[in-house]
């Protein structure tokens, strides 16, 4: 009896995951919202990832993208500084709001393989708290964000899982946009490979096979 229930749960879960994965259904175009404003969350992963993510954010019109959430790792002062630098430039032009969300690292450099799953689980719990629980029980913003921008490194996969927990239970979930880094010319990064099946929009900056002079048309940073 218990076994049958277990099998049924697994089968239904797999079916649910199949339904919510991008590509398993026809892409429905988003409804135009009024007013035409939206909230963007962006993960600043460190070093080069942060620089590129901040450059991407600088492309967006703060009138439309009027709430911005910068997700950074605990203690990543460089990413924090870059986010604040960008926001000082924005603040000079527009009235809009931003917030910083600090999450624990899923894995530190040189962390042992035994404690990594624990650290990743803790990181996922914190992400879920902000992406699922807070919006569910808050009176203000009922959603975390409309769009979540990811560009690596591997840790950004935790945020991806948190989004899929929302999708699984049918809660509002941000649209995942993954932008592969400018550094990857011929192959995808590990984070790119991990996130690819889950991203609603997956963008690379270099075409695979094309004449050299055509390539620059695809740079986003």
């Amino acid at each position, binding site marked *: 009896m218990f076994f049958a229930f277990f099998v049924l749960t697994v089968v239904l879960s797999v079916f649910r995951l199949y339904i919510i994965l991008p590509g398993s259904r026809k892409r429905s*175009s988003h409804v135009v919202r009024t007013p035409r404003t939206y909230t*963007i969350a962006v993960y600043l992963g460190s*070093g*080069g990832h942060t620089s590129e993510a901040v450059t991407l954010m600088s492309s967006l019109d703060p009138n*439309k993208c009027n709430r911005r959430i910068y997700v950074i790792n605990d203690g990543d002062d460089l990413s924090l500084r870059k986010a604040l630098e960008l926001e000082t430039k924005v603040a000079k032009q527009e009235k809009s709001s931003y917030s910083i969300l600090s999450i624990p690292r899923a894995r530190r450099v040189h962390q042992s393989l035994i404690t990594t799953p624990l650290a990743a689980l803790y990181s996922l719990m914190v992400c879920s708290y902000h992406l699922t629980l807070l919006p569910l029980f808050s009176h203000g913003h009922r959603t975390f964000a409309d769009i979540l921008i990811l560009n690596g490194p591997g840790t950004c996969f935790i945020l991806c899982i948190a989004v899929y927990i929302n999708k699984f239970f049918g809660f509002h979930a941000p649209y995942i946009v993954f932008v592969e880094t*400018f550094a990857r010319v011929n*192959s995808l990064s590990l984070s790119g490979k991990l996130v690819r099946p889950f991203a*609603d929009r997956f963008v690379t900056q270099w075409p695979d096979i094309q004449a*050299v002079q055509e390539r620059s048309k695809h740079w986003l940073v």
Partner: protein
Amino acid sequence: MHVFLTIGSTRFDSLIASAFTELFLSSLRKKGYSTLVIQCGNSAFEFSGDIQNGETQTLSRAGVEIEFWKFKPSLQEDYEKADLVISHAGSGTILDVLRMPKPMIVVPNPTLLDNHQEELASTLEEMGHLKAATVENLPNVINEYDPSNIVPFPPFDGSRFARIIDEVMGFI
């Protein structure tokens, strides 16, 4: 004329070691470069003990005035002062320097795991935006390098990403 050499946030022992050799310095001198600033990061080399607490040291060798230190919060000012930037092939540094724009020679760091610096360096060299070198052939590359042949790097265009987001939101 002035050269700035940077190796990024990690370490690049072999490039830093070669930067202090007579061979490298005299190749700079021959091309008219008389001052050199080196950002050493955490590299281990003959003078690394002298800068480990954040000091700035100076040295004169083979007719070149050298200044060296580990890190700075921003390298923007050093890029601006330089007539030539020699760097590891990190994508962030490449974008920053080519957008200045400044002539650039990059040396991919062969010790980095999952080394994709090599592919970015050689692709951008093929396109004529910069010159790629190895630690071994760097003095030769400096000798042969003519910055007047650089293909200008396209400026940043934010409209492409803005368009992607507008599409996602259903605005267009």
